[in-house]
């Protein structure tokens, strides 16, 4: 039994925003797999919760006219993992979703909750960073859009005002010859947090060899997920050779700031950053050249 004073179950987004405005001390409850575990550990009393997972306005995915992929924040990881548009266009996000927790958790945990929880190990984060995701937040007065990089402030902290609800995650369109790959490194293949996560997204020139644009993002490599901008700039215009992969991994390390934890030492994480950055880039490069990437059979590394 949690010490819950009020549990609001709004029937619409509008009602949820109004309830939140009237109760600035209330917490939003999506899938609950993080919020309820925190309530159990920290034992705060008389909390107020506003359930939002039932709101149809916040669920599902869609492909907009310009090719942008719109994801409702209350879409579950199971739904993300099985979504045909996500699997075709940005399979690494489906892969990341299916690598998080076990099926029971994936069935209720939501992508918006994963982002708003701000966990350093959030499995969706590296992919969303590498895909330049935009976050749309709404209050009863209006809406604002922010890049996901500006949204993460620190471990467990995101730039969301108490009266705001995340209403969309937008993934800008990709052109042809685009490939992406997420690699999660953990000690167990299932039900484990990432020791390190690396997500790479690569677009090639028409010759299918030269990199037009590369994005590399790491999770658990710093207090917040990071984009490796120096490595990305270095990769632009290059053909991916063994030497280029190694240099990109070395540059990625300069942009990370891993820590010691009981899960893994700083030195071990540093080795992982170099190695996994290279592996993710290589796999994304191959995908951009036409190799397929099945999020179901891609085992957690």
């Amino acid at each position, binding site marked *: 039994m949690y010490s*819950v004073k009020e*549990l609001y*179950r709004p029937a619409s987004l509008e009602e949820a925003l109004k309830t939140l405005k009237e109760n600035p001390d209330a917490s939003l409850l999506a899938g609950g*797999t993080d919020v309820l575990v925190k309530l159990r550990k920290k034992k705060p009393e008389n909390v107020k919760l506003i359930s939002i997972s039932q709101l149809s306005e916040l669920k599902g995915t869609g492909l907009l006219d310009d090719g942008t992929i719109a994801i409702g924040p209350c879409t579950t990881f199971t739904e993300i993992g099985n979504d045909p548009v996500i699997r075709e266009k940005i399979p690494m996000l489906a892969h990341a979703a299916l690598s998080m927790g076990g*099926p*029971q*958790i994936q*069935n209720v945990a939501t992508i918006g909750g994963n982002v708003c929880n701000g966990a350093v190990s959030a499995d969706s984060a590296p992919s969303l960073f590498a895909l330049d995701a935009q976050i749309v937040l709404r209050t009863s007065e209006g809406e604002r859009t922010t890049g996901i990089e500006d949204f993460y402030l620190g471990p467990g902290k995101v730039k969301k005002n108490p009266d705001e609800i995340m209403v969309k995650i937008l993934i800008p369109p990709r052109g042809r010859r685009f490939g992406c790959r997420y690699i999660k490194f953990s000690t167990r293949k*299932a*039900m484990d947090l990432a020791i390190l996560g690396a997500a790479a997204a690569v677009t090639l020139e028409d010759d299918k060899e030269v990199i037009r644009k590369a994005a590399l993002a790491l999770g658990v490599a710093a207090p917040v997920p990071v984009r490796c901008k120096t490595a990305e700039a270095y990769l632009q215009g290059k053909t991916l050779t063994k030497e280029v992969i190694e240099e990109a991994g070395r540059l990625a390390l300069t942009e990370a700031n891993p820590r010691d934890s009981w899960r893994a030492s700083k030195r071990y994480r540093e080795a992982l950053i170099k190695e996994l950055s290279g592996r993710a880039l290589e796999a994304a490069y191959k995908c951009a050249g036409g190799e397929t990437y099945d999020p179901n059979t891609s085992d957690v590394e």
Partner: protein
Amino acid sequence: MIQIHLTLNNAPLTIEVEEGETLLEMLRNRLELTGTKKGCEVGECGACTVLIDGVPTDSCLYLAALTDGKEVTTIEGISQNATLSVIQQEFIEKGSMQCGYCTPGMIMTSYALLKKNQHPTVDEIKKGLAGNMCRCGAYQQIIDAVQSAGEKLEAMEKEA
């Protein structure tokens, strides 16, 4: 207290629950449906797995009040009168347990898995049951039971 209406094991139910009460607590404490087990209470062991609208869910991390309007199925709901379901029978046949504590959760997840796919590969079973822990280590026999239940279900469908 919040009054909710749900379908529990195929029967309509109206019940009052506390705001902070979990589905697991409602099942075990109010309804004495103690087949669903309390394990880790943080969503790691799967002992408390029930089906919500047919989908395996950890009942320890789900507020009872949020099952309003939904269909909940527990281990008590998959046998008919005194006849066990095929998957339950196969768990017995294959000796898929030692202490039995994980068994109801394992069976509920397997039950949902077999509804979607009667021919799961060993890999698909392992992935499907990744959220259920067995501390006795009866995994091999559990996988055997799921595969054998799938075969039996298919044979029964062919006969029918």
